[in-house]
């Protein structure tokens, strides 16, 4: 029971960390600006100028 809790908590945090790392462009190069990546999780470029419905678009 205690072991399961210990494993579940640590592995959940490891997964969240891995997920956040995938979304960080500065993982592979310091030069890029920190913040959300230019591509989505599948590597497709995000639409420039905001999403549909964005007043700034």
């Amino acid at each position: 029971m205690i072991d399961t809790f210990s494993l579940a908590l640590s592995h959940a945090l490891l997964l969240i960390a891995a997920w956040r790392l995938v979304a960080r462009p500065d993982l592979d190069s310091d030069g890029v600006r920190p913040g959300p990546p230019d591509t989505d999780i599948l590597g497709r470029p995000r639409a420039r100028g905001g999403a549909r419905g964005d007043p700034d678009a």
Partner: protein
Amino acid sequence: MRELGFMGFLGALLVLGLKRPFLFILAYIYIDIVSPQRLTYILLPSIPVSMLMFMLAIGAWLVADRKDDMRVGARQIMMLVLLVYCGLTTYYIAEFQVEAYEKWDWASKALIFAIFLPLALRTKLRIEAVMLFMTLSLAAIIIGAGIKTALGGSGYGSFAMMVDNNSGIYEDSTLSTAAVMMIPIILYFTKWGSIFPPDWRVKLFSYALIGACLLTPIGTQARTGLVCAALLFVLMLRDSKRKSLFIGGAALAGVLALPFVPSAFSERMETIGGYQADSSASTRLAVWRWTFEFAQEHPLGGGFDSYRANRISVATTTVSGSGPSQTMSTRVHTDQSRAFHSSYFEMLGEQGWFGLALWLAIHGIGILRMEWLRRHYRGERAPEGFQWVSPLATALQNAHLVYLLGSLFVGIAYQPYFWILVAVQIGLDTYLARLRKAAAWKPLADQVSEPGTPKLVPTGQA
């Protein structure tokens, strides 16, 4: 059920690794520490997960990562020499060939990975990610150990830590040393973490984890852990701004921890001073003496597991009664094939004077380099955006010193966990050296146009 969880977790890391290959390296670090194949019984133990991830990590780096600005540290070359030397002693010298090859198998892998890892630590975030994976992977074991201790369970060598076989990082003294060693790194995350930016949740988890780290030596009754915790306290005092508050806080924490200390623990800790009555400590001294003599006869070392050749007799003296009726009884017992119980003697006995010197140099340079970084980037001397360097170098140096003290009493010279720490230090050092070099570089045109630079004029116009 647990097996499914592990499979799902590893599967998720593999999928994420396809997007960012650096995650394969993190996944290997996780497998190396937690060894999920040892915690499950059906499918995972039959797959060489560790080997596969090792190949994947290095393969992905070779294929997909940038290598144009790569730097190799002097310590990586020294580790490579140590690796080759270990290989030679295993092949030519080792008396216990079968056991030596078994140890070579995992020790060489730990060294190869530690030589490789700094090459991949090209960004600040990668350095942080490796430390976070080291911390959270250890937390998988430590959280459980801490809770069990708090609930009153303890016992050296019998403390149920999820696995039956008491080896690797799951060995009690090794785990205690690793737990105390990670405390400065966890504290770094409470201030400078960027994957989990420090907020109240991160701080709560970190302090609870530090509590579990401190309870681990108590639960495992590993005396080494207590000595390490004492050293860490002194080391942290050196950088604490409000020293009296720090001492007061530590004393309060000690008092609060007292109810959790099992009586068996206090009895065992009392034996730290009286080693003559303690056969475990006396045996250690005898083994160390044997190793020293062995090294005189075998200056090149005896190869892995050379301790198996020893045969020692230990006399333990106990005093009973008090005053004039005090009686002293001496008991002699013989032991053979006692492990080194010290990394320093492990290196001396297995790799001889050359191996020991190399190992000491690798660690000594690490401590000195961290001290240089600590000072070079301290306070106002740190360039904008590099305020994190000095605290990180301090945390890594404190962790390293804790390891070197724990190593006095535990044979952990080749344990992968501690080599990863060395690799992170080298990675930080080479990363900053690269940035310093880039900052100093200027295009030639800019240098020529600076005032005071002698101008070259074509001879015909002079």
